[in-house]
């Protein structure tokens, strides 16, 4: 009897600590509307085919992973526009180092993680030490990375070994590996934010950097850490993409518009652009909303450009639902 109540309590506590963000209502609505439209106008795969459901998540993996990193940076009241080209440089460098050989995989992963850390470090240092507005700082580094990539590579370079494709296409039982990785990254993001000092300090830095500093938080280090984490998620996202595509090319990042899309899904998820508020579970919902839109439009056979119209409207409506009651005017 007592054990039951304790687990019950634990569950309750878990539910409370996870705090289901309101965006999930939005997610359910989008899902239901998409599913019902599919049911009426097409063959109803969304409701009836679990594989299609899973593929909604798989579609969202690359964006989801990097959006987790973006969420952390935005919670720290910064922003990272360089993720798209970080993804590109990862994709291209990893396949270049691997050259189709399994024995090079480890070197490649270590190599690109090092690149990711370096990019995050530079971003963080420019923002904290040079006091450059993060928008400009990461726009600048993004241009720099873009230039470096395009000056060095213009095409598919190298390739990844078959074994590495497990990352992108493999299954563990009925669950694609990629979903497990996404959930793992989301979990790490959640854990960092709500269970570590780093996370607590990051909320402090984003909420009010002066308060955090006066409370003894090493604000610069925390923000640099967030930028490094963000670049690392971009690296993982890039590795995932390259494993799906067999080879890396300079355009994988910008083609997926990962910079603006990751920001968009983050804010849909309830993370405030001004920092100090939000979390990764909301971001996951935002990413899934985009995935559902993709699938629904495919199912309905509607011109996908209309989807982009919907995305735009959803971004504004979702954020408006958070801000409309606030007394403060927006910037």
């Amino acid at each position, binding site marked *: 009897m007592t054990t039951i109540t304790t687990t019950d309590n634990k569950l309750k506590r878990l539910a409370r600590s996870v705090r289901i963000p309101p965006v999930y209502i939005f997610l359910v609505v989008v899902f239901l509307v998409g599913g019902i439209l599919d049911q009426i*106008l*097409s*063959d109803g*795969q969304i409701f009836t*085919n679990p*594989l*299609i459901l*899973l*593929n909604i998540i*798989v*579609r969202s993996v*690359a964006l989801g992973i990097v959006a987790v990193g973006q969420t952390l940076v935005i919670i720290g009241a910064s922003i990272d526009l360089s993720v798209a080209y970080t993804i590109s440089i990862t994709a291209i460098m990893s396949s*270049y180092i691997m*050259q*189709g050989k399994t024995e090079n995989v480890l070197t490649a992963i270590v190599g690109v993680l090092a690149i990711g850390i370096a990019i995050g470090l*530079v971003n963080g*240092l*420019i923002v904290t*030490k*040079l006091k450059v507005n993060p928008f400009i700082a990461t726009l600048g580094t993004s241009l*720099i990375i873009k230039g*470096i990539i*395009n*000056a*060095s*590579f*213009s*095409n*598919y*370079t*190298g*390739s990844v070994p078959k074994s590495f*494709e497990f990352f*992108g*296409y493999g299954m563990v039982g009925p669950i694609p590996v990629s979903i497990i990785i996404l959930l793992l990254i989301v979990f790490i993001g959640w854990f960092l934010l709500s269970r570590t000092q780093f996370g607590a300090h990051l909320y402090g830095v984003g909420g009010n950097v002066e308060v955090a500093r006066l409370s003894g938080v090493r604000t610069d280090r925390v923000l640099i850490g967030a930028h490094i984490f963000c670049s690392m998620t971009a690296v993982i996202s890039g590795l995932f*993409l390259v494993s*799906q*595509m*067999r*080879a890396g*090319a*300079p*355009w*994988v990042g910008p*083609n*997926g518009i990962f910079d603006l899309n990751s920001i968009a899904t983050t804010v849909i998820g309830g993370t405030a652009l001004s920092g100090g508020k939000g979390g990764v579970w909301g971001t996951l919902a935002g990413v899934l909303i985009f995935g559902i839109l*993709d*699938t629904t439009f*495919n199912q309905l*056979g509607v*011109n*996908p*450009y209309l989807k982009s119209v919907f995305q735009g409207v959803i971004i504004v409506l979702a954020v408006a639902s958070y801000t409309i009651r606030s007394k403060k005017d927006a910037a």
Partner: protein
Amino acid sequence: MKKNLLFVVSLIIVLTMVLTACANTPVETEAPVVEEPEAPVATEAPAAEEPAAEEPVVAANPGLQMEQAQVAMQFWSDEEFAKQMELMSAAPLNPDDPIYLQYLEESPTDITQYPQYADFAAKAPPYNICFSNAGVNNPWRVVGYIDMREQVEQYRTEGLVKNFIHLDAQGNDAKQIADIQDIINTPGKCDLLIVSPNTSEALTPIVEKACEVMPVIQFDRYTQTDCPVVSERSIGGYAFGISGANFIVENLPEGGNVLAFRILPGVDVLEHRWGAARKIFEQNPQINVIGVEFVGYDSFKANTVVSDYLAKYGTIDAVWMDAGGTAVTILEAFKDNEAAYPKVMVGEDQQDYLQYIKDNNILGIAPVFATYQWRTAVIAAVKFLQGETVQHHWYLPQPEITPENLDQYINPAMPPLHYAMCGCEDMTNYPDAWTTPDINKYKDVID
């Protein structure tokens, strides 16, 4: 403050170091090519020798030394180059069929050769066909897509095709992979998958997976797998590139400055075009390639490039292009910069270009990558499912529009961005569907 200044300076130094380090990488990227004889494409050995052999020529051609001018090994095959060169002068084996059904080489196949697709072979029409499309994001693809949809509409009236599920990847590899995954995940939805891959490499694994569960037809750009039951397009990129490059070489006997424009890297048909042109320019040292630039379909960028090169070199004698989308803009840029038009011009079979070179008496050629291949994909799909014989490697003819036959392809009734070689003149809705193109009006699923 001093500390910060120091930081800025050191940051800049680091950046420069990174830059210089990376500037050397192209040289490094070529090294493994030599080292790895077991790399996938067997014919890469001569390609690897080339840089060394052509060193003096390269020195005279600043454009060919540019990063944009390099041809990656997976996109070069001497064998294929020679073959396409040969096919360019080959006559179709079935001259009585309309051009979009002709083939230049025999490689017959039918569904009985694929026991794994027995279920599909047993099906009776109407068929459901899925089409994973790289995008409808340039005029060439619009014309081709309308060709295709009009063909589907014709089949629908004949009762041969029911649903035609179109999945538009919007030029995004990752989205196209997920789109195809969706089709794999819904067995029974489609009887055949047509793929027009966004890029060659990225789509290869997923197309291989699709092949395992259903017949696949690829056209336009090819993935690097032979698993599709039909791979069809007009001859190919090498032929396109050769056509333009030869025209320049022939018409500039004394040589001159050539500026080359490319759309984007990584797409096999486009890489082949440039690779072939590069080879021909290398064989003709009197041709001085002053630059190779990627401009996409961005006419703004193209315009700027022309101004830049005119500022730097004074005259440009010929322009080579791997696609004609920005041909007219480029010619206009010459005019706007008050420079003489290039003596020799390479474009594509777009009406505006044909009209422009005619009106301005420019010596120009329009190599063709025929839009009718879109139509052929649907026809091949239905024929294959019906058990008829189709071509496994289907080389459609690829005519070129030269000054001699220019007039027969100019059609002032068609809009400027229409492609002359659409092979659509015999369709029910010609010309209305093409004069006022509306890609949104077609229905995927019909009751």
